[in-house]
């Protein structure tokens, strides 16, 4: 009798538990499976491969990495670190003063200039590199123009090697410093400086003792971010490195040479450094925020009214815009060049629409674009579903292992693209349970998977941000009015979070369209994407075709930026109160 009673009670307890938590399990299971199978597993596989020699545990591959007699890996490591440090310094020198100008002064065309200033961040790295090659390379437009003007024997300058990599890096990464500093300057309470002044501090003294210390978090954050990005950079080294060794590229070369094991060890070292920096970055951003909280006078930018400075600012602005837009314009110009006609001339001599027309006429020319669109669509759709599910779980439900899910979703962000691709190779070059016993490497599906993993943090983050803004009582209101979870989700939550979620997904889509590093490591002829085709066209000196493909990417990005700003951004549609 009494035992019967206990089991009965246990059963209701179990049923209650299920009723309370079934929703969580239903969502958590697929989310967790995806994270474990496609994010964690490849990275663990990379690690374990790097520690195995002939099926046994060994540091053999690492001792080759650190072998002083064959110092290629060490050289590459040193090369990466030194280039990244230089990138940080130069980017800071460009980004911080620019932010200071924009935060403190009003001048004509400021809105336009500040929009242009962040342009480089949305340019696919590969296209940027291409543009710089056309512009400043040995047979680039500018060096040749100067040569022709001055009647020199050879070009007066040309970027190549380390300097070229640095220029491209600074061009695209100064934006981090710019944005971080801009946010800082805007939130800096002017009364702090007034207080310092009032206490008798000179201007320079208060800059050193007040502004700089308060600014260290912003500068530190930007530095770490730029350093990480630069360590992971692949496109610029791919074009310009020459004999100079850089770790991300070295991994690719080692793999091409067939030494997958060493490539794996190199990947682990690169990933280790990146993860270390990510941890530092998190520590840093936790300590951030000296600023804010203060009320009182808001900082208002001073208009520059008087003649000379105004003129100077105007000119500076124009120079800036030209510098930033020139690469885009160059690519567009070259896209109209007849293949094989631009050899020694300063500017290309013959123009044609052929490069574009072929897109519609020749299926083989259109194929890479169709491939990319197809694969990016698949990856982004998966990103969307995953991102919404994971963000919903993390924000709205309590469960054990939340931290783990959160960390795993951010992992692909910390891991350089080269390393992610190597991980996918060593994992999916054999049949695996999580691929239903298929070998993915060499098939169509490996690239959508790579894009999915690469953009997973981005879509997750933007979804998370919009969901976080979403007032939970709205969902509850819907439920109490009789809506089941699905109805409430479709009619209340989705319409409200859609703008934020979609703009994240659109960005992920164009990034996947132009994705280079994982593509070049994982593509095959039948799914070759746009980025790989650009390289192929360059190899056979079809500059026009390569540029036309690049313009396609630029245009797609332009559309996404406009759509995001016009239709999705701005208004936050939240509780009316």
């Amino acid at each position, binding site marked *: 009798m009494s035992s019967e009673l206990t089991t009965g009670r246990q059963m209701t307890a179990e049923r209650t538990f299920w009723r309370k938590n079934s929703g969580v399990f239903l969502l958590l299971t697929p989310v967790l499976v995806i994270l474990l199978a496609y994010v964690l597993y490849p990275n663990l596989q990379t690690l374990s491969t790097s520690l195995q020699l002939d099926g046994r545990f060994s540091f053999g591959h690492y001792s080759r990495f650190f072998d002083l007699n064959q110092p290629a890996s060490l050289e590459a490591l040193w090369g990466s670190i030194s280039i990244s440090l230089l990138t940080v310094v130069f980017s800071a020198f460009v980004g911080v003063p620019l932010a200071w100008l924009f935060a403190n002064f009003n001048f004509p065309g400021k809105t336009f200039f500040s929009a242009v200033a962040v342009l480089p961040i949305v340019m696919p790295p590969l296209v940027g590199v291409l543009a710089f090659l056309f512009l400043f390379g040995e047979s680039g437009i500018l060096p040749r123009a100067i040569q022709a003007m001055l009647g020199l024997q050879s070009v007066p300058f040309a970027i190549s090697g380390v300097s070229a990599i640095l220029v491209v890096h600074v061009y695209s990464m100064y934006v981090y410093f710019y944005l971080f500093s801009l946010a800082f300057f805007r939130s800096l309470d002017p009364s702090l400086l007034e207080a310092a002044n009032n206490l008798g501090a000179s201007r320079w003294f208060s800059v050193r003792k007040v502004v700089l210390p308060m600014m260290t978090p912003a500068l530190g954050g930007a530095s770490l971010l730029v350093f990480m990005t630069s360590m992971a950079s692949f496109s610029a080294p791919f074009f310009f490195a020459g004999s100079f060794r850089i770790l991300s590229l070295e991994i690719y070369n080692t793999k091409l040479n067939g030494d997958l094991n060493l490539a794996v060890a190199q990947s682990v070292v690169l990933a280790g450094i990146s993860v270390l920096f990510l941890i530092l970055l998190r520590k840093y951003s936790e300590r951030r925020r000296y600023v804010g909280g203060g009320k009182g006078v808001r900082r208002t930018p001073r208009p520059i009214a008087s003649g000379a400075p105004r003129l100077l600012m105007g000119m500076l602005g124009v120079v800036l815009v030209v510098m930033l837009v020139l690469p885009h314009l160059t690519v567009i110009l070259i896209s109209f060049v007849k293949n094989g006609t631009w050899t020694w001339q300063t500017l290309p001599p013959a123009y044609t629409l052929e490069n574009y027309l072929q897109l519609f006429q020749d299926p083989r020319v259109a194929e890479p674009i169709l491939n990319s669109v197809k694969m990016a669509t698949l990856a982004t759709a998966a990103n969307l579903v995953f991102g919404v599910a994971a963000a919903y779980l993390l924000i709205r439900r309590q469960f054990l292992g939340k931290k783990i899910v959160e960390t795993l979703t951010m992992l692909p962000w910390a891991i350089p693209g080269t390393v992610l691709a190597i991980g996918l190779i060593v994992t999916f070059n054999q049949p695996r349970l999580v691929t239903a016993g298929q070998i993915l490497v060499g098939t169509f599906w490996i690239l959508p998977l790579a894009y999915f993993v690469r953009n997973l943090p981005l879509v997750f983050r933007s979804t998370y941000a919009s969901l976080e803004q979403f007032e939970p009582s709205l969902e509850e209101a819907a439920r109490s009015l009789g809506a089941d979870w699905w109805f409430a989700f479709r009619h209340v939550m989705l319409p409200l979070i859609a703008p934020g979620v979609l703009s994240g997904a659109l960005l992920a889509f164009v990034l996947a369209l132009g994705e280079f590093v994982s593509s070049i490591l994982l593509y095959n002829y039948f799914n070759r994407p746009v980025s790989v085709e650009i390289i192929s066209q360059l190899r056979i000196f079809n500059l026009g075709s390569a540029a036309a493909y690049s313009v396609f990417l630029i245009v797609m990005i332009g559309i996404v930026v406009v759509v995001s700003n016009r239709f999705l951004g701005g208004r936050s549609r939240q509780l*009316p109160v």
Partner: protein
Amino acid sequence: MSRVTLSNLTKKFGEVVAVQDFDVEIRQGEFFSLLGPSGCGKTTTLRMIAGFEFPTSGHIRFGERDVTYLKPNRRNAGMVFQNFALFPHLTVFENVAFGLKARRVEKATIPDRVSKALELVDLGGLGSRQVTQLSGGQQQRVALARAIVIEPEILLLDEPMSNLDAKLREETRQEIRKLQQRLGITTIYVTHDQEEALNLSDRIAVLNQGECQQVGTPEDIYRRPTNKFVASFVGNSNILSGRVTMAGTEKVLQLSETWQLHVPPNTLSSFSKGENVWISLRPELVQPVPDGTSGVNVFQGETQSVSFSGAVLDYVVAVDGVSLRGRDLLGQDAFGRTAGTPMTLQVSPDQIHVFAEAED
């Protein structure tokens, strides 16, 4: 329209016990308030009734139906949220129609029902407005219309006034009460404002730290508090500590060396001589009288402060070193007194409540 029964309702958030063994039966058609200070578990109780939280133990019944673990959308309980929770992407009409659509009510009947609900809350004609364009009071009424249009068995309101300004509150309060009586709907109303609760409710449950202190009509709660907490929370009583002593054959309350308070014999019948007790004394029972008055419970005090608050004068007076809050309802005798001047006052002996000290 149904009765709501809470039995042994308990909710724990980890270590925090938000609601402890709450037992109450809310009658059909009753306006029932949950009253208590911040953090006492009012919202948690309401959310369990609505189905947004499941209790750690205990049961909730609507009529005979056990709804303890029923999903919120299956409960038929309309709720008005503290922040109104109007859907910002929908118009007034669409907000009110939402519940009907979610319940797959026949399409053709929806406009009619929505209009009727909007009429009920005096918002007829505003259906096409965006909710973001409404004033706070209007938003509140949309929230109310949205909750009643689905003809819920029970109406739940979580501090629906807290986002309104003082004057609007007064008006809205009466409207809510009228509407509730007209619809005869069982209503559970959460508030920390005792005046609101006393004013609106058929019955009130006073909560403190997750535990129900007393359930009763407003008059019960005010005039016959069953413990020190209820006495002090409702009506801002003076809570004094004292001892039961004898003055001749009569039991009296000894508040200080020389200060004795006479009370009706039955007030102290359950206490024995020498027992330490808490004494609850409402401010309005402490009345200033003209100097030289004599009688039972007339004392000399020293004015500590007087503050003017419209219809009444509130003051603090010290009697033999014990500070006492008083309220001069006629606004005459305390008028113009300044701190430090003497004041004669009389404490009326009815409605002095005495609780055993151990109870705390």
